[in-house]
């Protein structure tokens, strides 16, 4: 088990299975098909992201460097939160980007969904965590990976 300390963007706690995107996470490309056609597992639709393409995202601890792509990104995350289709948490190795922050904050302020968000966990976090590992997020931004 290894611990990493990040900055809390949206507070909360959770334990979930890791889903790791080593490249930028394209929110629109990842979610659009799943949201549009009611995919219960919310499988990732981003063909340019081999790490997570076609893998279920619902309830996972989404580990990523940052999000990329369309400025609908925040709206897409907000929608996922409203529909209960959000990841269990989002864990960023880098400082959070504006689109992900928007989505996470809209989800926090305007919905009842719980999706803790921690950023600045560092490159070592992303190098260490593997898809399938168990991740625990604590209130103070500590993330345990085992």
């Amino acid at each position, binding site marked *: 088990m290894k611990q990493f300390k990040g900055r809390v963007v949206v507070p909360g706690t959770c334990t979930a299975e890791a889903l790791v995107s080593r490249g930028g996470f394209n929110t629109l490309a990842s979610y659009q098909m799943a949201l549009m056609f009611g995919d219960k597992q919310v499988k990732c639709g981003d063909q340019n992201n081999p790490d997570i393409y076609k893998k279920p995202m619902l309830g996972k601890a989404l580990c990523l460097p940052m999000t990329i*792509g369309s*400025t609908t990104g925040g709206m897409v995350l907000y929608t996922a939160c409203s529909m209960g289709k959000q990841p269990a948490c989002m864990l960023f190795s880098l400082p959070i980007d504006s689109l992900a922050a928007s989505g996470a904050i809209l989800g926090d302020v305007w919905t009842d969904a719980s999706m803790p968000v921690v950023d600045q966990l560092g490159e070592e976090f992303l190098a260490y965590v593997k898809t399938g590992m168990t991740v625990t997020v604590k209130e103070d931004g500590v993330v345990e990976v085992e």
Partner: protein
Amino acid sequence: MILTPEQQALLDGAKGETMAKVVKTLVMYGDAFGAERMVPVTSKYGHTVISFGLKAIKPVYALYDQLLDAGLVSGQKFTADPKPIDPKVPSSLLEDLVFKKIMYTDQKPYEEQLRKLGITSDDDYTCTCYLDEVGNKPEKGDVLSWAESSAVVYANSVLGARCNRNSGIIELMGSIAGFVPEFGLLTDEGRKASWIVEVRCEKRPEAQLLGSAIGMKVMEDVPYVKGLDKWLGTELDEKACAYLKDFGAATASNGAVGLYHIENLTPEAKEQGEALIREGAQVYVIDDAELARVQREYPVVWKDPEAKPQLCFVGCPHLTMSQLINWSDRIENALRAKGLSQVTVPTVFTASTPVLREFEKTVYASKLRTYGVILSYICPLMYMNNPLCKKKAVITCSNKLRTYTSARYYTEDEILGIITTKEAAK
């Protein structure tokens, strides 16, 4: 963040609970980036990325209803991204059914919401709101509350306005409040480049390919591009602006670029030169071989990679007047050279309604129609956002469309060749 007494009062509920939540959203947004204050939105118009009444995002319309019920509308009129449906664009019966009965069931009510919230006009649905024909062109230094990645990167880079890569919904909240948190691309420091891109191509690099290569390399950082003025010149004429529109859209969609500087060409690069480059900036050298590598590595996600193209989209982002005219000439010459009268792949050129209206006044519009090209205001990206299109062999010279859909990317010359081949006609 330090709020003014007026802003604090709004946060405390002086104008109701919903307005307080709007301000809370903006404050949290600013806090996430260390913003110390809010700054007024100074542009005449806003721009929203959400232009579609998609059944899947009903929570967004419910939120907008909350805003309207609380009497909150945009403090500035705004334009919106292109519409997802246009009857002129070829579609099968099944596609029509999916578009109208399953996907975009909320289009009409959403357009009504936008009217209430403050859209400038029913014609102003385009990703290229900054073109003269549309008229939402910010001044240098204006603070914007826009979303739409291609428009934001253009406004920042080519017009010298200041806007973060805001998300849909947040942009509207900034326009409602009349202020946005000051961070990132709104600050001088945030506009400095942490990448130097050296363009060493032997021929004019394809805008959408160069932008893609840079976007994938620098991600959200600001690149300072050297060597492109050799191909674009040092004046922001119509041709250079059209190039930068396409280049920027690719940087923003293939990465997350919100601002780029082109040496000797874009306003801040002309004024400040290399002073815009941060100490220790990384260097990325791009030559013809690198661009070929980037293009070669795009995944082909067609079910049958050898399939004959069934549809071609040109114009993501929407085309400018000069691009439409240029394409008309190129198609005319290609068809004549091959002894053809019409394009051999169904082809759709997309542009804003105001641009298309002006284009209709030229001889080129009827020429293009004669060649079989369809002119539309549609958003090709929204058109292709369904599993039926995934089975369709769609080609495009838009790297944004390639990124978000199953459309296959070709350079403009390659597209021209494909849509005017006799083989495709068979």
